[in-house]
């Protein structure tokens, strides 16, 4: 099932009045359960592409469909609701809410969805158990290591069973062993729950795990095909 479709997407930034073409016409289709890595050198447009797929940024031209709904015409509130229900984000800098504990961070999006407290506690515990981070429940981000924070961020991203999880350089701030463990976890989530993962990364170990690898260069798709993990 198609979860994301991009048609002739362009993104033009203005840099002090000078137009900069970050994306020059991207056509891309992602189906459910994919484990896709968007790679490419710095400035190739991979983060811009991920932001547009995550409805964090708008395309200058072209159309973006998330679960067959065109998001370009949606209001800010509708896009917020869409992100809340359909998307999960894992950021390079973890970006947990510092004043909340791990448990509360995981519960947060469920609270935004209006799920009652007991139900969200149960679901958060379930996810924490699955990711083996139960002992972190009452810790705040500043009491956790980077790897622990990123696991909590993954738990936050998957807790609402989103259609797509977008991960922007998720291992960039982690040592290789912690990064590998995190990727193991994400692969397991992908395998066990058919969650769709889309990564933006230039980390070799992330690229090596790709089942589909999209390589960008100068705002264009240079290569789109099977990754190492697919072989």
């Amino acid at each position: 099932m198609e979860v994301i479709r991009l048609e002739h997407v362009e993104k033009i930034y203005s840099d002090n009045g000078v137009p900069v073409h970050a994306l020059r016409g991207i056509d891309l289709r992602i189906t459910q359960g994919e484990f896709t890595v968007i790679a490419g050198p710095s400035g190739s447009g991979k983060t811009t592409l991920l932001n547009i797929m995550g409805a964090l940024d708008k395309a200058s031209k072209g159309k973006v469909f998330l679960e067959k709904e065109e998001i370009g015409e949606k209001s800010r509130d509708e896009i917020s609701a869409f992100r809340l229900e359909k998307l999960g984000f894992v950021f390079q800098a973890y970006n947990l809410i510092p004043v909340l504990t791990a448990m509360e961070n995981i519960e947060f999006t469920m609270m935004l969805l209006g799920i009652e407290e007991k139900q969200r506690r149960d679901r958060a515990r379930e996810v924490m158990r699955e990711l083996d981070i139960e002992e972190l429940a009452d810790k705040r981000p500043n009491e956790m290591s980077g790897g622990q924070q990123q696991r909590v961020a993954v738990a936050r991203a998957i807790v609402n069973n989103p259609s797509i999880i977008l991960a922007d350089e998720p291992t960039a701030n982690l040592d290789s062993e912690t990064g590998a463990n995190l990727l193991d976890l994400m692969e397991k989530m992908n395998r066990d729950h058919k969650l769709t993962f889309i990564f933006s990364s230039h980390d070799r170990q992330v690229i090596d795990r790709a089942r589909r690898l999209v390589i960008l260069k100068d705002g264009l798709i240079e290569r789109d095909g099977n990754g190492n993990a697919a072989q």
Partner: protein
Amino acid sequence: MLLTIAWRNIWRNRRRSVIVLVSIVVGIAAVMFNDGLSIGMIRQMLENSIGSHVSHIQIHAQGFNDNRVIQNVVPKPAEVESALRNTAGVQHWSPRVLSFGLLSSALNSSGGVIVGVDPEREKDVTTIRRSIVEGNYLTGAAHEVVIGNRLADKLNVGIGDKVVGMASALSGDVGSDLFRVAGIFETVSSEFDKAYMFTSIDNARSMLELEDRILEYAVIVRDINRVEAVAAELRQKLGDDYEVLTYIDLLPILVSQVDMYKSMMYVVYLIIAIAMIFGIVNTMLMSVFERIQEIGVLMAIGMSVRRIFAMVLIEAGTLGIIGTATGLALGTGLLLLFSSIGIDFSIFSEGLTSFGVGAVIYPRLTLDTVLNVLIIIPLTTVLGAVYPAVRAMRLQPVTAIRYV
């Protein structure tokens, strides 16, 4: 959970929040104290005027208040006294005769008001007996007079000294009598103490040729909040030949001062609110700018801009509520303490007694003050957070997340 986030965010920068809270608390306590002190002062002026002479209600012949001549006597004193006895709201009453006149001693003269009273009844109506500082209150004996200390000073008389009172008598002739000073009183109003002398009603009647006539009935009601109702009942019983005036009619300037002060207090609240708004805007803007990346993340994970807006307002509102509760507690505590022990302004006593306030002022805590604080301050803190909240709403997640 938004409340939890708001609460914890407030304490992320403890020092800044404490500074804001202290400014709110001190501001509230100060404005409450100022409010209580001013209301206390004006009320004291009002109560002192009521207590020293005016009383709650005065009954005269119709038109007496506008034309205070001795010929304008109460038409049927027995009718008035019967009405007073049969009105449940009336607690005490006292008949009076009074006239403007001249008091003279061997050394000096002074204009003033000569008041003839029933000593027994008058002591329940005014504070004159309690205000005697030298000598004694009236016993009802002939030629006794009690005068204010300022008048005594001016006439240079003391207890037992002679003074001559002169005033227009009923016939139009000048009536006069020789009195001996039996007592000297000192009220909180130096102006009153300069001008009034009291003698027994029989003595005054004799001097003014009034026989058994009465010029004024001074009335104290059981419940001051029902003074208008009691006055209306008396008006209804007495008819158009009489004027029944409450202290509100008799002291219009003081009463309007209370109302005017209430209006002025709103100006003070407005000034405090404006100052507070700037503080809150500054604090909340700093709080938002420090959390741009975090707000970007909240937006990215699906928090709507309306919730972002609400979150900032809740934070400011929480600060406002904590500040208001603490400030209200402090202000109330201070007002309750000083309303019982009073604040001694002896250093300004000359000025204060001129206004009939007294050297010791007892601040008053009123429901108006509490309601004003409860409504205006939290509302102000929330209003102060609107601009920072709008700034937070306008952030774009894609740029906010990358903000360093």
